[in-house]
């Protein structure tokens, strides 16, 4: 039942409002005359993305401009967000190709499993982040759009890093 009020005896220098004010003014003035600016003026200058940057997807193509995808179905299986829609098709020679290949970039969590699992190195994440659209439907990228992307693809790991692959 004791009332135990702890009264801290602090030195004047620590509790003085006047000194703290003057110190604060000096600090802000220091920054005012010698600013340590870190701002990147975004639309004018952009910073370099890491090779491991995981952005919106890109489908690589063969020399004749067709998607490398063979519709094996590994990527929709491995996708934790369930954002890849794949309907496989087959031509007269028995080669499989995607009839429908859609990625909902809103659902995507950019884990990179699809790129990692792809046996044909067809689907890749991209080093790209300017994805603004005017409506939600535009964020479902179809095959045509995925093959039309031109941005560099993600490395998923840094090849120069000693712990590499």
């Amino acid at each position, binding site marked *: 039942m004791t009332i135990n009020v702890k009264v801290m005896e602090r030195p*004047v220098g620590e509790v003085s409002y*006047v000194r703290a004010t003057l110190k604060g003014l000096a600090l802000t003035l220091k920054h005012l005359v010698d600013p340590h600016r870190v701002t990147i003026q975004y639309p004018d200058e952009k910073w370099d993305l890491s090779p491991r940057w995981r952005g919106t997807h890109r489908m690589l193509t063969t020399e004749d401009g067709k998607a490398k995808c063979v519709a094996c179905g590994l990527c929709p299986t491995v996708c934790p967000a369930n954002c890849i829609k794949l309907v496989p098709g087959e031509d007269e020679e028995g080669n499989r190709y995607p009839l429908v290949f859609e990625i909902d970039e809103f659902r995507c969590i950019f884990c990179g499993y699809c790129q990692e699992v792809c046996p044909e190195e067809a689907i890749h994440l991209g080093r790209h982040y300017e994805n603004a659209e005017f409506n939600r439907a535009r964020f479902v990228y179809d095959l045509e759009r995925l093959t039309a992307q031109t941005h560099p693809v993600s490395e998923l790991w840094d090849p120069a890093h000693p712990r590499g692959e």
Partner: protein
Amino acid sequence: MPALDPMQLEPSTWVFIIFTVLKMLAIFTIYMVGVAYTTLAERKISAWIQDRHGPNRVGPWGLLQVIADGVKNFTKEETMPGDVNKALFIVAPALAFIPALIAWAVIPFGAPLPTPWGRIDLVVADLPIGFLFTLAITSIGVYGIVLAGWASNNKYALLGGLRSSAQMVSYEIAMGMSTVCVLLVAGNVSLSEIVMQQATMGWNALLLSIAAFLFLVAAFAETNRVPFDLPEAESELIAGYHSEYSAMKFSMFPISEYANMITASAMFVTLFLGGWDIPFTLWDNSGPATVAKAALTSLFFAAKVLFFVFFYIWVRWTLPRFRYDQLMSLGWKLMLPVALAYIVIVASALLALDAAGLARTGWAFKGALMALNLVLVGVLFFILDRGRLISPAYSRLERERVARLRSVAQRRATLAPGEIRS
């Protein structure tokens, strides 16, 4: 024969009226542009202090940002909440702004300007009661904020309005009291006379530093600037008194804040920093008026005012906001007693020096005042530094109470269980 020079004579009535209108136009234009660019300056300086760039998209270095802001504010939709008191809701923003503008009428901003039609004083109205006029006008400024808070029919706005009225009334007193010393030294309440007194005796900031300090602090409170911006404390009151305002009506409140800031700076400069006086020379305030003198002194006045506008901004981005009880105890328990004591000290000192037969413009008089001032500043700084005067939670009385409570606690702890406590 300089007396016959028409440039040095008093102008005729018509010339006086025409030039007064011209001066009003000039001041209004410069003032409004100044207010607009103060908003930009605030954003830029705050950005630099925080290691940012600030607005830099509109025009070179963002210089056209104020125009963009103006266009935006004029073209925005204005909402009129359902249950507001319409008349007061519309009048309040104007009421907040107009007093700041009117106060400029009596502030002298330069040495007299010679013209072929006579000598023109660079002040819109050289009232013999200039200082009292500014005190009266600036206290009207509180109505705009209080009425805005009340007419909004919003609890937060009302609280903001109440706070601002309490704050402004409290600091008005300290402000008025701190300037009494200036009036004592000048022996006059005309602002032109106060400027001339400082030109001959030295600036009041050196003679009456404590009064200058009190005035500065009170001016911060009067203009609702940080650290005294409790009326719009966003963490407690959303936006305080202007929560319900939108578009240009809202914009009038920041404009009036900046206008008040410039006016308060101009008042401080006039009362304590020699107004338009150029330091270390008597060239500017003796002999016949010339155009060069008028131009240079006006520039000096502008530079001094701008420095204090900068100071306002600088302090805003350094200090945190006071708590409400700290604000009140600072105003009533510290500033008012100090201001009153200072009046007594300065009055006695002036009486003693006058009785000793020293001339007011002489070095002995000035030196004595300055020495006294130095001692008083030292004492005040020592007291402010040691005592946490603005925090009622930690005062000398409180420490004694703590000691008493401790001894009671000690006694109780030594009682045997079951023993009746007395």
